[in-house]
């Protein structure tokens, strides 16, 4: 009886949670005229025209490609920078290490708007505006500290004696790191990559400011769909549905470890 009550509660919660997503899916399968004309709980005359338009119109699909390019670049850069940093924080004691560790996290607390103007000027000076690498680097501001925090937790869970045994066995630090240590924390690396991916994927402010057309992210494209005929709701909904897909895919792969990631590896 108890379990039943709980299941009902969970079902209601899940229903409320899924409602907006369902509504978006519903809209994405209808034409704009239909959406504005009739209220319907399900698409009476489902059409894939919105999706077809997104996949055919380069203004739309290039947004996805751009996003995926800079998000992937950012994930790789963040991991490459964070792995050695996290190892240092986890294994060595140096002057001001705890303060520096905390300072890293404060970078995540700062609102992106604070960095907007200096970044715009800096990237303009170097001629990086409207390139994928510009957005990828800008997102490192949030993702490197986060990656260091998560990875440090996972690394500290590996006993230090393993490092020492490897040195006694004759491993050099880089070789030990790549062949012994990285396989040990691959869960942590997966979780970290997921978090970097998600944060970079949903970030709009910096991505929109630093790009014009060549590296314009999908989120920016979606905010610029007002045309002479007004907003194209169906198209926007279809784009929204497609935006969820990559995140959902990544979550599927790391679903077992995500809780540990949220606890920064300290579970």
């Amino acid at each position, binding site marked *: 009886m108890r379990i039943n009550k709980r299941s009902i509660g969970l079902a209601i919660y899940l229903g409320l949670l899924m409602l907006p997503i369902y509504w978006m899916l519903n809209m994405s399968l209808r034409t704009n005229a239909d959406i504005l004309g009739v209220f319907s709980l399900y698409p009476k005359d489902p059409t894939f025209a919105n999706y077809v338009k997104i996949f055919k119109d380069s203004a739309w699909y290039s947004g996805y490609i751009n996003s995926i390019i800079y998000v992937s670049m950012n994930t790789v850069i963040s991991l490459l920078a964070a792995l050695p940093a996290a190892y240092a924080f986890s294994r060595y004691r140096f002057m001001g290490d705890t303060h520096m560790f905390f300072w890293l996290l404060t970078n995540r607390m700062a609102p992106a708007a604070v960095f907007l103007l200096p970044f715009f000027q800096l990237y303009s000076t170097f001629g990086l505006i409207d390139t994928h690498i510009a957005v990828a680097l800008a997102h490192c501001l949030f993702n490197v500290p986060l990656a260091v925090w998560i990875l440090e937790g996972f690394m500290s869970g590996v006993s230090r004696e*393993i490092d*020492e045994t490897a040195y006694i*066995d004759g491993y050099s630090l880089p070789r030990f790191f790549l062949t012994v240590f990285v396989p*040990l924390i691959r869960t942590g690396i997966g979780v970290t990559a997921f978090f970097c991916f998600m944060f970079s994927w949903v970030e709009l402010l910096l991505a929109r400011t630093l790009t014009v057309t060549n590296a314009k992210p999908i989120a920016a494209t979606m905010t610029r769909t007002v045309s002479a005929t007004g907003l194209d709701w169906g198209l926007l909904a279809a784009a929204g549905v497609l935006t969820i897909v990559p995140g959902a895919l990544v979550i599927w792969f790391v679903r077992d470890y995500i809780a540990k990631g949220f606890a920064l590896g300290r579970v």
Partner: protein
Amino acid sequence: MSLIFDEVTKKVERDIHLSEVSLELKPGSHNILLGPTLSGKTSLMRLMAGLDRPTSGCVHADGQDVTGHSVRKRNVAMVYQEFINYPSFTVYENIASPLRRARVDKVEIDRRVRGTAEMLHITELLHRKPAELSGGQQQRTALARALIKEAGLLLLDEPLVNLDYKLREELRTELREIFNRRQTIVVYATTEPSEALLLGGTVFILDEGRVLQTGPTADVYRKPASIRVGQIFSDPPMNLLAGIIEGKEVRIADEICFPLPPHMAGLAPDQYCFGVRAHRFSLTRSSPQDVEIEGRVELAEISGSETFIHMSLNGIAWVVLEEGVHPFRIGEVLRVFVDPGGLFAYDGSGKLVRSPFASPIPQSEPEEVNDGGY
């Protein structure tokens, strides 16, 4: 290979982990570091391995100063108390890894891995991952990895502590045989006197970061030079009874009085501390000169097939180790017997003046132990 420590001190922030330790490990020698937890055994081993750098003092290996040399350049192998293996490698790769790093030929690696695995009885586990092994098998893998390297210095930091009793017994005996067949310096840290005695060799008694006594293990056991050494090298710790020698009599706490045993002849009348190991007490009289002591049972703990009986009498307390399982009630009055011939006598400053083992055995500090002037 030989290793010499010259007044090595290790401090971590304000804490002194080792204080001016000087010692010499001779080629092919088997050395036991015996001391309670926090006595500095692990600190000393880490310095021997080169994992840590001493705060002051020098470390010489084969006559060369190697103080501060990286562990990669030292010819050492080490086994930890925890079972440390590379979790992502199979047992085979774990054992082979030191040879792979040393770029040994593949055929040679295979031959040596199989040989070492054979010796440690893990041949059928070679294809497994360490997580699929029991604790004993994991430690065997770690031992195999340390042994295969044939390093000049083999360090074992309480390798059997985390194993259950039976496995420990089994591995202990095997280890002794393996060590005997090798030419390397073996350093074995333990808290257990019985383990030290079984492995033999040279013992270093450590306490609070200092080496208290050094010598052949059996000799140190027979002649613990100070009260502290006696306590460390007995399990349970040596019983200490304060008493006086008056003429031809020994008197302990006014209650117990017996004639001066022969090995204490010639001791000047004074206050002494008499040490007696728990197993020297007996519940039955075994010889006419046995002293009978009556005391109250404070606690009787059964450990394996032995019973530790904690007893007291008018403020003095002692522990009796009796073979077999004996359920005693707390508060029960019990008679125990002890042969005064088994008593160690320590003077006021805690130095050994008489040992029940009369025959003069060469000692590292003979002037303190065998001086007839006491």
